[in-house]
């Protein structure tokens, strides 16, 4: 029962990781842009959300409604102002540019919000739970998992079935050939990064509701998102979702073995996957 409980808690934690990982699956997995500021953007959005909530006395849902469009706008500006200047087959320029952005954002957040940990008041939602088959499951983690599943489903269908999705996959496969087919790759990339950061708007609200956030927390989120995408396999959205579950379950089981071992267990599973199946669980082997 204790292990079954760990499994359930791991899946719920995986729901949170999936929300970080989806944006990464789009930017790194599909567009091959390495965004080191990924986690810092989540934290920035969380802190903005917390400030909005306190200033205007808003509940979590109105904060989400304000924050997601703001996140979309931030993503669009990020691609237009920074990343479109450095896109190309070489991932190094985007890595360096976003590494600089990451440091700048952390310092900016430290200036505005100080180093304290904060969280978003959930107006009681964070303490409710349901009993399912003898296990108590938090309502909030269930909502997080449901939202993560919904977002994954939407993103997967968008990539497979829509004009935008096909254009993005085409531009990611061969930017020049995409332009020869009438695609404006910069416009498509700006929309894709807007979508990726928009998803981080969801992650930001739920992260701040589930636990606390502080300006220096970004890099840890970046690592979890990165690990989930690599475990699942580059270029597959459901792969990133399953990778998040694997990461969450590994951490939850590791935590039951020894509370200090939880995060490390996740890293070990990540390394084990990388060593035995470098293309990830659902990725195609490079020919």
């Amino acid at each position, binding site marked *: 029962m204790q292990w079954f409980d760990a499994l359930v808690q791991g899946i719920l934690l995986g729901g949170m990781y999936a929300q970080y990982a989806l944006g990464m699956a789009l930017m790194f997995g599909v567009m091959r842009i390495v965004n080191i500021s990924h986690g810092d953007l989540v934290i920035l959005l969380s802190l903005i959300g917390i400030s909005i909530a306190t200033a205007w006395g808003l509940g979590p849902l109105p904060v989400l409604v304000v924050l997601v469009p703001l996140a979309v706008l931030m993503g669009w500006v990020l691609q237009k102002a920074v990343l479109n200047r450095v896109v190309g087959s070489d991932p190094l320029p985007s890595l360096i540019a976003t590494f600089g952005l990451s440091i700048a954002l952390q310092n900016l957040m430290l200036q505005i919000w100080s180093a304290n940990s904060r969280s978003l008041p959930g107006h009681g939602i964070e303490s409710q739970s349901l009993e399912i088959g003898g296990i108590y499951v938090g309502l909030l983690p269930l909502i997080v998992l449901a939202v993560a599943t919904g977002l994954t489903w939407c993103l997967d269908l968008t990539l497979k079935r829509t*004009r935008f999705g*096909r*254009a993005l*996959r*085409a531009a990611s*496969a*061969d930017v*020049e*050939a*995409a*332009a*020869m*087919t*009438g*695609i*404006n*790759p910069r416009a498509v990339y700006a929309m894709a990064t807007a979508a990726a950061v928009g998803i981080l708007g969801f992650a930001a609200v739920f992260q701040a509701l589930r636990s606390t956030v502080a300006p220096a927390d970004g890099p840890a989120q970046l690592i979890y998102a990165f690990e989930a995408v690599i475990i699942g396999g580059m*270029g597959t959205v459901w792969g990133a979702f399953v990778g998040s579950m694997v990461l969450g379950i590994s951490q939850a089981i590791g935590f039951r073995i020894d509370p200090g071992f939880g995060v490390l267990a996740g890293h070990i599973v990540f390394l084990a996957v990388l060593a035995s199946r470098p293309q990830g669980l659902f990725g*195609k082997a490079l020919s």
Partner: protein
Amino acid sequence: MTAVLSTHGLVARYGDFQALYGVDIELHQGEAVALIGANGAGKSTLLRSIMGLLPVGREMVLLHGEPVGGTATDRMVQKGVAIVPEGRRLFTGMSVEDNLRVAIDQAARMGAKGGWTLPRLHRLFPILKEKARAPVQSLSGGQQQMVAIGRALLCQPRVLLCDEISLGLAPKVIREIYAALPEIRATGTAMIVVEQDVGLARSASDRLYCMLEGRVTLTGRSAEITREQIGKAYFGAGHAVV
């Protein structure tokens, strides 16, 4: 009669290396022009310059008399110029149909009008219907070339640039692909066809240009130019005639 497409003193560089030295070519309504020349003569560079894939001066390329040199590639497609690029450049990881849909999507977005539809393309190359759901990289070379041509046609071009569409294909497949060109021309699309095989180039075109080391060395009606003239233009003066 003004040309559909023309270049004027077209100069192109890759960094310090100059690849084109003042190229002048013309393409008229409904015409098929062949572009021949040895490897490295600058044929692909010429097509890439027209498509906006290399920086060139505005006045160096005219489309229906309008200066368009250096226009972004996607805008050139919108203006009615499409290319079947060297090496096909298909979207790997996507199905045959999705490769074609990308072009259909963009043509719809830009409001491009023309006669090319998926059913019509399937009549031209029936294998593309059969293989619609197959990953594009699983197709044979000839079938992939048909996808590349189809993708360019679905951009609804008034000018089509074809870069070595016979490269690496079996003679039977080459015949099959070249047999499709008359139907493409029948829609009023003008074409520039880059081709290594001189005989094939002549039979598929009204006029031809021969390039050597970044310059046009010969031009004339394909039916009238002699093998001797082509031999000289191909390899340069003083070289043994083939």
